[in-house]
């Protein structure tokens, strides 16, 4: 059993794109040692909410957040907050893989380099190798580390982005459908990784696969139309949902 500790506490969060409300009064706890899964139909606000957790929504023009989100008790939307540090501590894997148009090596080494995590070239090599290995990409790319990260297949790019995110060992890792372009074996590898990471980190994963949510997560939040319909222990949600809507969704009877 891993130690559980409250890491991020989101309270009454509302998110707007211009005038349109995309997230409506969502409150969720994210803890270290726990994998939290966000599930819900497409367009319900999972990615939007995920982005609020490390303020990546700042980069979207017209996006506005209300409510409180605290990381280790500290309001991340407070004016004194150092966003850079926040994002270093709360890493993110995007829904659409977005490798840098640089070499595969540089893609992974970038984070460690700016955070000074490697003292020398050998350290860096080790970090890159380890990250790529954990993302299950090492064998496929070890001979072509100098090739561009954009010349990889869809699934390879996705794993590259995962490797890039874990290379800086953030405290919280937000993953937006990290396995959407992966085959079952690669998926299993990432799930293993998640299992592995959760010992020390807080992990949030958005997924469309109920099976995956059930396999890897301990907490699940079911989003629907911008609200969290149900949030609780994964087992409960899947075996004994309190809400009708949750049940419908899980059993695929929805809509």
């Amino acid at each position, binding site marked *: 059993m891993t130690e559980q500790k409250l890491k991020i506490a989101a309270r009454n969060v509302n998110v707007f794109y211009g005038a349109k409300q995309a997230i409506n009064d969502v409150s969720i706890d994210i803890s270290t040692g726990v994998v939290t899964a966000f599930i819900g139909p497409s367009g319900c606000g999972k990615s939007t909410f995920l982005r609020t957790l490390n303020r990546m929504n700042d*980069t979207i*023009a017209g996006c506005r957040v209300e409510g409180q989100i605290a990381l280790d008790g500290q309001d991340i939307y407070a004016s004194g907050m150092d966003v850079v540090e926040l994002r270093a501590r709360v890493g993110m894997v995007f829904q659409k893989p*977005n490798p840098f*148009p640089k070499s595969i090596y540089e893609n992974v080494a*970038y984070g460690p380099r*700016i*955070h000074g995590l490697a003292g020398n070239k050998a350290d860096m090599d080790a970090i890159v190798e380890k990250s790529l290995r954990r993302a299950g990409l090492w064998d496929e790319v070890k001979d072509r580390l100098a090739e561009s990260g*954009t010349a990889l297949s869809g699934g390879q790019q996705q794993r590259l982005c995962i490797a890039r995110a874990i290379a800086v060992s*953030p405290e919280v890792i937000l993953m937006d459908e990290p396995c959407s372009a992966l085959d079952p074996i690669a998926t299993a590898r990432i799930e293993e990784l998640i299992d592995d990471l959760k010992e020390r980190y807080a992990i949030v994963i958005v997924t469309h696969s109920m099976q995956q949510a059930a396999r890897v997560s301990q907490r699940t939040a079911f989003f629907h139309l911008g609200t969290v319909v149900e949030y609780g222990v994964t087992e409960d949600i899947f075996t004994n949902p309190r809400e009708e809507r949750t049940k419908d969704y899980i059993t695929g009877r929805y809509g």
Partner: protein
Amino acid sequence: MINSSWQAPEMQRRLARRHAAERRFKALGLVAIATSLLFLAFLLFTMLRQGLGGIDWAFLTGSDSTDATVAGVWGAAKGSILTMGVTLALSFPLGVLAAVYLEEFAPKGRRWVEWVEVSINNLAAVPSIIFGLLGLAVFINVMHLPRSSPLVGGMTLALMTMPVIVISGRNAIKAVPPSIRDAALAVGASPVQAVFHHVLPLALPGILTGTIIGMARALGETAPLLMIGMRAFVATPPGGITDPASVMPMQIFLWSDEIDQAFVQNTSAAIIVLLVLLMAMNGLAIYLRNKFETRW
């Protein structure tokens, strides 16, 4: 039954029409570029025919003279090189930094930011002679920098070149997909790091394009230099950026108005030298631009 629509005659006709349009469009493109290049070729041919005979070692190493057989181009060429050096040293960093600020860091929607934006765009439209007036007023009359010098010439031309670099730079920066910024920010890069490590290298080709055309314009410019004393007879090549100097286009302008018909050849020869100088100046930038061009 299957394949109905695409094999249907009216669909095929439409396809043929679209292909014809495609061919027309491509031909138009070809004609456009060929026209532009023909113009260039014609100019070059005329210059080469008239001027090639005038280029020899003495011409390349000599300075201005009232005797067409003695007059050489080195004095003006050196003046141009020094002037362009000053222009580049000022306008490139200033232009790039301003572009980065306006595109990435300036608070959006503020009145003063809009003013900066508009005034930079507007500076590009200011007649070059007005920059000459400004250079005269500020650099010579207020700062007491030496008249006719590459320093003042370069500073004046830098004011003119900077907007071109800023405008092209901003567009290049704008064209970098937001997902690249997101990727950098999400691993904990600061906005400054995201810009300098990722956005700027990707925007570099566009910035260099602006630099190339801006500098080319500066190199061929005469009007503002009239005002700051570079329309002058200078028989000794400048020793440094504060010595009196002329520049190539000015030399060409002066020679073209010489009474002595022997200067016609010199004029064309000087134009050839200027174009060679231009190509040399652009060479590095073009090399870098090709090198950094990435498609995503």
